[in-house]
């Protein structure tokens, strides 16, 4: 399997690195980096401390949490640090933001970077005072000599510190010495956001910039055959019409003229090989995998076939999730300026190195001739791991011979999305005469993700087994089989990728098994997590069953599992609780209890989600709670709202009107409990998503006795 995660590690260069400034994110003033021991920390003679953020901010809070880690280890004054967003270049080789790895990867590397800088500043102060460095400490942007109370600011020490060697193995602070980590810290970009000064991709303005819209074929694989460039040019404000590899670009003085000019083109399309493609055809391709053996057995414990054959009873069920869009509120966009054998790009990207490489390749120039500025992102969710919208802007800029902002309309954003493909999972369990679960088989099929490259006929995508292969339950005979089908439509990463489909199936099925053996769903989970080896081997991960069991027990306890649901929201409605849990990539353990009511018309209301999690040290509890709220909202859209459908090879949805997402009035109360831990932090951006839909579906069963095996859940399924 491809190991995409390996590409997501932070690198810390030992030498002073070139920090390319992002003018829209940080003040344009030139600082004086008197002291820059690595790529992540700079101190000016004026005492200004600049921390470099090597991950994209898309709402998950990395500009706050990563800077907290660095500032705390350094001993900087949090209220005074300046942030700078890293651009690809020497010292910043891996800036990709994905896989919920930012804090997990940043914890060791940023602490080392902060500690190295701190030791050098302390050594410089100790030398000046002729004191023992061990008697000095860094705090609040100064070095303090405890015995005498002497104090020197980082600025006063910057030049002297810069002359010292960079320690290779600096001492990291003990947990008790960290003052900022573990405290609730508000988002650093908050003041700019609430005053409209935060700079997203669409807000970039560069001198001489024009605006462009591109007409692209709605059907995957189609191409334009006829268009009326003259009509588009006749629209006031339109400057040019250019054929590019993705379609026909209209370049204009403002966005409205670009959109109007594009409408005037009247493009006729040759729809290509997918002219007749529909959603049911895509499902038929996914379903065909169940007719024979799956392409890959991803886990095999014991003898499942034998155990199923010998079981006293067998339970089976088949589950589906749906095709889903990202639908981030900021549509795709990028500013590119191609001139003189160079290209400068401002993009809301999760993947600046990919943007750099693919743009360089497109333009036939070296990587180093492409400068990529990472802007704030108005919602990423995996869509912006693709570089398509950035390279397209470079192509349009080259054709127009001017800096250009390519703006995607909302309709473009749907039509050109890399969709989360629907997946089907069939589960089967064998139960022995004493009611013990002795066999468990999970077979799943979906489309491969085109965002990451062509279909590999010899293997399955790295992500498609997630949620199946790492089934945490101790069942002696357990097998997981996976299948990818070559996707004819654009597909890609989507917050937690294939976990939602597989965890929905697995956790709903566990409830079905619990009902079959007459056990409480919490009790059966705890039984299967306290049995067997404490640590299960589910390559490439180790699953700590007891850690997950504690989290399941905590969520149940805090939700009042087993007590009646009351309150005005339940009047005249059937109420129920459901639970689901998951271990994400062998690390973060999380469980949700959903409290739900169902009305006579089959309408579902989610009243409360109680979450328990063990993700090691919590860097920013305020940010962590936000990620739970966010994951719950995201997954409730998946569970209860819209879906993407195809007709004629094209996505049928084009706005939030026909692709419904969760709204304000539908947001449940969310309560978060974390387990105290001194382990290194593990990821938390995607982790809250997968167990939401199954917890809701299990609650619906508790309320109504109806099993939901397909997402999104429709009122007609419940009447």
């Amino acid at each position: 399997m491809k190991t995409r995660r390996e590409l997501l590690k932070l690198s810390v260069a030992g030498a002073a690195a070139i920090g390319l400034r992002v003018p829209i994110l940080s003040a344009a003033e030139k600082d004086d980096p008197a002291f820059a021991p690595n790529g992540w920390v700079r101190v000016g003679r004026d005492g200004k401390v600049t921390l470099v953020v090597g991950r994209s901010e898309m709402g998950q809070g990395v500009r706050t949490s990563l800077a907290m880690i660095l500032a705390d280890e350094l001993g900087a004054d949090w209220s005074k640090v300046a942030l700078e967003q890293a651009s690809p270049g020497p010292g910043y080789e891996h800036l990709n933001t994905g896989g919920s790895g930012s804090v997990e990867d940043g914890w060791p590397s940023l602490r080392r970077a902060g500690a190295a800088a701190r030791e050098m500043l302390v050594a410089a102060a100790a030398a000046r005072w002729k004191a023992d460095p061990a008697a000095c400490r860094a705090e609040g942007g100064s070095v303090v000599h405890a015995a005498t109370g002497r104090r020197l600011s980082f600025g006063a020490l910057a030049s002297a510190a810069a002359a010292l060697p960079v320690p290779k193995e600096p001492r990291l602070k003990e947990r008790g010495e960290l003052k900022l980590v573990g405290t609730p810290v508000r988002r650093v970009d908050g003041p700019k956001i609430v005053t409209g000064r935060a700079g997203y991709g669409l807000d970039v303005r560069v001198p001489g910039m024009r605006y462009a819209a591109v007409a692209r074929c709605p059907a995957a694989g189609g191409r334009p055959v006829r268009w009326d460039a003259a009509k588009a040019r006749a629209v006031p404000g339109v400057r040019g019409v250019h054929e590019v590899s993705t379609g026909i670009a209209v370049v204009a003085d403002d966005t409205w003229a670009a959109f109007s000019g594009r409408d005037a083109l009247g493009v006729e399309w040759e729809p290509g090989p997918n002219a007749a493609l529909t959603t049911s055809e895509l499902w038929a391709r996914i379903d065909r995998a169940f007719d024979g053996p799956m392409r890959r057995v991803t886990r095999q414990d014991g003898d499942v076939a034998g155990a199923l054959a010998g079981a006293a009873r067998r339970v089976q069920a088949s589950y589906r999730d749906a095709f889903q869009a990202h639908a981030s509120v900021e549509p795709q966009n990028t500013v590119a300026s191609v001139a003189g054998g160079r290209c400068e790009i401002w993009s809301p990207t999760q993947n600046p190195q990919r943007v750099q490489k693919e743009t360089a390749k497109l333009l036939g120039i070296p990587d180093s001739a492409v400068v990529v500025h990472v802007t704030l992102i108005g919602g990423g969710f995996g869509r912006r791991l693709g570089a398509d919208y950035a390279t397209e802007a470079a192509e349009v800029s080259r054709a127009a011979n001017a800096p250009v902002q390519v703006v995607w309309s909302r309709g473009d954003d749907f039509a050109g999305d890399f969709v989360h493909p629907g997946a089907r999972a069939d589960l089967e369990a064998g139960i022995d005469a004493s009611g013990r679960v002795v066999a468990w088989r999970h077979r799943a099929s979906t489309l491969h993700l085109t965002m990451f490259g062509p279909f590999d006929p010899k293997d399955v995508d790295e992500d498609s087994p997630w949620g199946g292969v790492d089934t945490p339950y101790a069942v002696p005979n357990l097998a997981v089989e996976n299948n990818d089908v070559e996707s004819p439509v654009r597909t890609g990463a989507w917050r937690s990728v294939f976990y939602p489909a597989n965890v929905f199936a697995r956790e709903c099925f566990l409830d079905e098994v619990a009902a079959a053996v007459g056990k409480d769903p919490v009790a059966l989970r705890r039984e299967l997590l306290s049995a067997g080896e404490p640590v299960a081997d589910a390559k490439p991960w180790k699953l700590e069953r007891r850690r997950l069991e504690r989290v399941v027990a905590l969520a149940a306890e805090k939700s009042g599992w087993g007590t009646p649901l009351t309150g005005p929201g339940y009047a005249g409605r059937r109420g129920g609780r459901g639970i689901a849990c998951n271990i994400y990539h062998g690390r973060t353990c999380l469980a949700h209890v959903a409290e739900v009511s169902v009305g006579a018309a089959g309408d579902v209301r989610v009243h409360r989600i109680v979450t328990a999690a063990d993700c090691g040290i919590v860097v920013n509890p305020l940010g962590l709670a936000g990620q739970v709220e966010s994951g719950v909202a995201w997954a409730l859209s998946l569970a209860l709202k819209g879906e993407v459908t195809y007709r004629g090879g094209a996505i049928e949805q084009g706005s939030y009107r026909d692709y419904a997402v969760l709204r304000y009035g539908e947001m449940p109360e969310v309560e978060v409990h974390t387990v105290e831990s001194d382990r290194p932090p593990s990821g938390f951006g995607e982790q809250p998503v997968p167990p939401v839909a199954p917890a809701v579906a299990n609650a619906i069963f508790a309320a109504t006795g109806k099993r939901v095996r397909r997402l999104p859940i429709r009122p007609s399924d419940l009447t």
Partner: protein
Amino acid sequence: MRYLLTVNGRPRSVEAADPDTPLLWILRDRLGLTGTKFGCGVGVCGACTIHLDGQAVRSCQVPVSLAAGKRVTTIEGLSADGNHPCQRAWLEEDVAQCGYCQPGMIMEMAALLARPARPSDSDVETALSDHVCRCGTYARIRRAARRVMGAR
């Protein structure tokens, strides 16, 4: 065609060949007021919400010709220094995640708050349920809204 508007208290004259040009693009592309966000262009997401003569409207649905002669307030002009009660409450509750939809949410809430009658929870729910936040900050928006209503 030239149009005269009052934007954030200042008279502004803008040229637009197409009288149907949405005010959104005049603000963003001509006047450099990028705090008003483009989300859908069809009036369903609320990211572009501004005040037109004190009323919350979706600037993607207001042709510049209809805004002529009117008072336009954008997020940049909501307060002199970011101290409008909504802006303060939004910060205190640490509402924003990606933050992209928040200017629209804040402008909607500020318009409700400026009405003579105190808005109820259900007024707030109706108004804000017409906005999309894909990050799911709704629970904190609710807390921020209650905070400003309580302080009113």
